């Protein structure tokens, strides 16, 4: 495996081993009690199911594309569950687990990938910005948002309901983008309350991290003047612990942190990708042993807090979610053609209005049965 050297020679925080055993590293607290861990397990299972279901829906032609998160459930659920309600996250296009934890109906995500609309949930309601497709662009938005949080006086007051932080998601590939380095510069200079959360899933489509960086990504933070840390991205307890600490630090006004969640994209880059061209079956199998859900299940079973009835209940819930999503996606109507012209600007714009008027007149010129909806 290409990453073994990096994985074993660099310090990486882990609280729950792949075998489901609890570790007690100094300085990193296990913050999830049994109830919270059960709820986290439920999130992991449901998120994986919605992801698998979406991949299937794409294969059936119901979605134009899907970007699977398979293998990254712990990195996403663990980090998103570390957020306070008033914290704000800026996702890439693969953060389905984050969206889930922020209360976004998965149908919204499917609308985006089906192409019925931009997938717009209300970012203010969920404290989650929209997906960003251009790699790394959102990391600057997160940094600017955090600069706004500072100006609102919502940092370092000590009021846990007021102090807020921003969580910026990006990947190992994005780390090469200028926008990400610029975000590090701006955040460092401003001491902005932002946590840079890099899911190193080992692939920028096909290209491995050693083609993006000469040194482990988390160590890059030192050059920008803030701490960086690598966490086992498949260990939801460790991700939650490390991200919680980084968000707390940001809310206290102590500035940014770079968290590198070391994980593995088990699925394709998107449903248009063919990973067999750039990695072996053995690579994937090795990571399957580090599965992010299995280790939680093992722990729950061993500790007795995950009894068979609970585990079966979660599975039944996942089945129901998949069934609902299947039905609702298939029932989604195409938007009316005139929706093309909606919301280009807030204020009226003569050119958009003229294009709309022309199009409506053009449409009206057809016999009723010829009009496409």
């Amino acid at each position: 495996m290409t990453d073994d050297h990096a994985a074993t020679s660099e310090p990486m925080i882990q609280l729950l081993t792949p075998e489901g055993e609890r570790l007690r590293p100094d300085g990193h607290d296990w913050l999830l009690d049994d109830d919270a861990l059960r709820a986290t397990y439920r999130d992991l299972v449901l998120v994986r199911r919605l992801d698998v279901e979406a991949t299937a829906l794409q294969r059936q032609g119901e979605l134009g594309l899907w970007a699977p998160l398979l293998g990254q459930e712990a990195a996403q659920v663990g980090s998103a569950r570390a957020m306070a309600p008033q914290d704000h996250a800026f996702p890439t296009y693969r953060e389905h687990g984050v969206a889930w934890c922020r209360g976004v109906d998965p149908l919204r995500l499917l609308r985006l990938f089906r192409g019925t609309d931009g997938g717009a949930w209300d970012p203010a309601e969920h404290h989650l910005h929209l997906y960003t497709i251009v790699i790394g662009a959102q990391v600057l938005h997160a940094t600017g948002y955090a600069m706004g949080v500072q100006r609102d006086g919502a940092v370092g007051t000590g009021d846990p309901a007021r102090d807020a932080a921003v969580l910026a998601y990006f990947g190992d590939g994005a780390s090469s983008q200028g926008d990400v380095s610029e975000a590090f510069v701006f955040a460092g200079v401003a001491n902005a309350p932002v946590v840079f959360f890099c899911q190193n899933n080992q692939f920028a489509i096909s290209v491995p991290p050693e083609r993006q960086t000469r040194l482990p990504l988390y160590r890059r933070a030192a050059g920008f003047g803030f701490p960086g840390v690598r966490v086992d991205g498949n260990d939801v307890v460790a991700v939650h612990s490390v991200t919680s600490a980084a968000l707390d630090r940001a809310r206290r006004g102590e500035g940014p942190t770079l968290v590198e969640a070391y994980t593995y994209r088990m699925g394709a880059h998107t449903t248009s990708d063919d990973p067999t061209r750039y990695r072996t079956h053995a690579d994937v199998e090795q990571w399957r042993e580090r599965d992010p859900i299995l280790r939680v299940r093992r722990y729950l079973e061993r500790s007795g807090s995950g009894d068979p009835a609970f585990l079966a209940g979660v599975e039944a819930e996942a089945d129901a979610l998949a069934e609902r999503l299947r039905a609702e996606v298939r029932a989604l109507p195409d938007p009316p053609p005139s929706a093309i012209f909606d919301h280009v600007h807030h204020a009226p714009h003569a050119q958009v209005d003229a294009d709309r008027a022309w199009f409506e007149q053009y449409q009206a010129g057809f016999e009723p049965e010829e009009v496409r909806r």
Partner: protein
Amino acid sequence: MTAVSLAKALNTGLRRALEADPKVLVMGEDVGRLGGVFRVTDGLQKDFGDDRVIDTPLAESGIVGTAIGLALRGYRPIVEIQFDGFVYPAFDQLVSQLAKMTYRSAGLLRVPVVVRIPFGGGIGAVEHHSESPEAYFAHTAGLRVVACADPADACTTIQQVARGDDPVIFLEPKRRYWDRADVDDAVLDGSLVREGRAPDPYLARIVRPGTDATLAAYGPTVRTALDAADAAAADGRSLEVVDLRGLSPLDLHTLVGSVTRTRRLVVVHEAPVFLGMGAEIAAAVTERCFYHLEAPVQRVGGFHTPYPAARLEEHYLPDVDRVLDAVDRALAF
């Protein structure tokens, strides 16, 4: 009335915008302590603090990208790009992020970012300091693009766009920064804009009425067109000059009204003629005025070359003679 330079008029307009709304920010390279390389933001940091008038790191994509984030948090950043040729590192943030944020959020998000760009040549600068990038932005749906031409217009328009909910590319004619003109006190004290008495900033205005041909210009070439109209008047020709102001939206109504009367149109800009604003204007006016036109629409502008070295720019930039040459061609038809 007070005589002020265009740069000072913009400075006053920015001051009024900062006073009017505590969410308004000014950010860019050297805008704070230095007051901007053209002094347009002179004194603003001293009076409004470095939290609101921000000397940013030297990274244009970072400036626009963080401005978007600030806008998403409820702020109203007015960004300065130091020179036209330095806007390109921010191109993705402008055309893919800023321009589309409203659309892809189905109107749920507001990103009221104003991007000020000193544009155009004529100051003897080194390369990348004299460009006219307006067509890139006018071509991009989701951005509003407006150019100011004189001190009163500049002071009014910057105050207006700072109050809107849409992203705006605000083009400043850098070789006219030092031009002085009388400005109404109601413009300078902000009352005209505050009370909603200023005209729509995207509407064109007839800055000189005439009968024989229309000159359409914006930004720095409005002055050129007015000078050409003066020279033509000495030859007994009456030229109407239209300052387009808005490039997106483009006020075709005013322009078509003018051309319907004068029957001839010459479009003047510094940007290359090929696929420049004049190309769209020529097509749009021809579609609407085909039976009124006595001559094909003439375009006067830069050449399909990179902006030349400073010692050559007087030959590159459209001047009074090039405008009058085009007027001659239009009138000869």
